[in-house]
């Protein structure tokens, strides 16, 4: 187990290094703004004195490395400054909007794995056959449209044409679930409101599927490719030569080894979902980070932009750490170190 811990510590260190890099990058991007953020925030009617005062508050009058130093010391205290858009601490804004987004992404991730992997396995087992080609076309279609297009198409088909799912929102207005964690599913469970949970799941289905479609395509294609590749390896033939049942070979000898490279890509798809969630949320009026993120970007709300991007990147890095951990748990080579060649 210690090899896994060592590996994880290494990855964590690199992730922190990368996150520091991200903060520098996004900080640099936010400071090359051509316009004056203070003036934009205050509007055209502000006096020069007011603008100057805000510039000082934002430390825009200081050299950029000093600004970055202040930013880091704020960050170490868990502060990301105040949003000019909402006039509230950025951390509070993010805490309010992030759970809905994460919930949507989590639902999409589950759909991606539960649909994408089986599709890939079925395609690999029918390599070159009709089902294989069908899965290929479907998964290529899945990755060929941005998720807002899928959101629109799914909405027209399954909310308007066939009114099976709700058009927008996170939960019906008739439900009153007290906020405990901010995660609606968890709150429903904690308060024992199972009908509310069912309604929330019903609401998340369509947006999550729209968000998951490209990931489903990716996961299916990749799983297929890895399975096909694994099926050509000698250990499969050896297993067959011992007469093990075909389904057992598929599970223990083909799927497990081919899962390892698939997991890495699932991590990357997760990153794409963090961005694409913005698109889906806009269509389904999902009360997540999207509206806030776009609003702060359009208003050049420095602190909020830096804070939002940093949190999203951190979420991505954490997802990748989890993927690394899972791979280490599946692959004994990593778990037990490379004792030999």
């Amino acid at each position, binding site marked *: 187990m210690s090899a896994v811990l060592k590996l994880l510590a290494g990855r964590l260190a690199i992730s922190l290094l990368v996150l520091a890099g991200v903060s520098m990058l996004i900080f640099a991007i936010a400071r090359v703004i051509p316009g004056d953020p203070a003036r934009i925030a205050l509007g055209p009617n502000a006096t020069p004195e007011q603008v100057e005062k805000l510039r000082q508050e934002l430390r825009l009058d200081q050299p950029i490395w000093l600004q970055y130093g202040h930013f880091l010391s704020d960050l170490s205290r868990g502060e990301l400054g105040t949003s000019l858009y909402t006039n509230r601490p950025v951390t509070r804004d993010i805490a309010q909007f992030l759970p809905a987004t994460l919930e949507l992404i989590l639902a999409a991730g589950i759909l991606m794995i539960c649909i994408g992997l089986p599709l890939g396995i079925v395609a690999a087992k029918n390599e070159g056959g009709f089902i294989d080609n069908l899965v290929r076309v479907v998964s290529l279609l899945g990755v060929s449209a941005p998720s807002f297009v899928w959101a629109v198409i799914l909405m027209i088909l399954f909310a308007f044409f066939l009114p099976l799912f709700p058009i927008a929102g996170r939960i019906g207005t008739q439900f009153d679930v007290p906020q405990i964690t901010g995660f609606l599913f968890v709150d429903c469970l904690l308060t024992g409101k199972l009908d509310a949970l069912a309604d929330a799941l019903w609401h998340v289905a369509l947006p999550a599927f729209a968000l998951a479609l490209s990931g489903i395509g990716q996961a299916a294609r990749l799983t297929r490719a890895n399975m096909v590749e694994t099926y050509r*390896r000698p250990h499969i033939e*050896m297993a067959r*030569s011992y007469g093990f049942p075909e389904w057992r070979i598929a599970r223990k000898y083909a799927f497990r*080894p081919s899962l390892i490279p698939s997991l890495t890509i699932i991590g990357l798809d997760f990153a794409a979902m963090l961005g694409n969630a913005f698109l889906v949320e806009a269509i389904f009026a999902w009360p997540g980070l999207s509206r806030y993120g776009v609003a702060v970007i359009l208003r050049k709300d420095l602190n909020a932009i830096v804070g939002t991007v940093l949190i999203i990147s951190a979420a991505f890095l954490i997802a990748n750490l989890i993927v690394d951990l899972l791979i280490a748990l599946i692959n*004994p*080579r990593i778990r037990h170190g*490379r004792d*030999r060649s």
Partner: protein
Amino acid sequence: MTDNILDIQDLRLSFRSHGGVTEVLHGVSLSVAPEERVALVGESGSGKSVTARAVLGLLQSQRSAQITGRILFEGRDLASLSGANRRKLRGTKMSMIFQDPVSSLNPLFRIEDQFREVLRRSERSADMRRTREVAGKLLRDVSIDDPERVLASFPFQLSGGMNQRVMIAMALVNEPSLLIADEPGTALDVTVQDQTLKLMRKLADDRRAAVFFISHNLGVVREFSNRLYVIYQGRIVESGPTGSIFDDPRHPYTKALLAAVPRITRAGIPEIEESPEAFSAPCEIHETAGVAA
């Protein structure tokens, strides 16, 4: 003839692909008697490996493969058996030792898990204790002194030679009557290869198992097999007792192969002459005296 372990009669095999149908075996006949060690020798692409896979019944389930002719295993025609019944023979009555020991074992499971999987082919309820007992004894037989450590290892933690011995031990778990060996040890260096062959010969003798040995190397075969078949482009070109073929090779291809066996007394490795026309001469059969063939 029926008391042979293995009887192959006029086996023809072709594969369908986009470009049409390619026949790779054009009527191969051979037999292996109980406790006999028979070698099938030929260059790569000659059809020797697919012959072994057809015997195991691995090709019969492939949609692209077309098989005609008869393969009799212990008197039963494999083609008359259902897929499930063919599968029942594999790993129990016959088992195969592969060329590349490291990549032929499942990379994600410990050796003991893989032994248990094999043991369960004959003993449904075998648990890990029973597995360790059986496997430990077999591993000692293949001269592994510390079976406990090997059993607890993953394939990548063991050397190639070690993996090869594990694979031989694994093939013997269910006491098969026929052991098929596909160029065992070619992926390893020469001294290890030599050791493995000696081990395999001794173990097969002890267990009275017949061995069907596939190789491209006549030098290796000479010490190992009682009888041999030379295969060239999907046809058997010469067959007979090993000694007799080595003393008096008759077919041009066999002569060329023999000339290609490196000898320490001569300098360098002679090249095989490119004379495909001569190689397609009819099959030469050495009459066997005494051996029940």
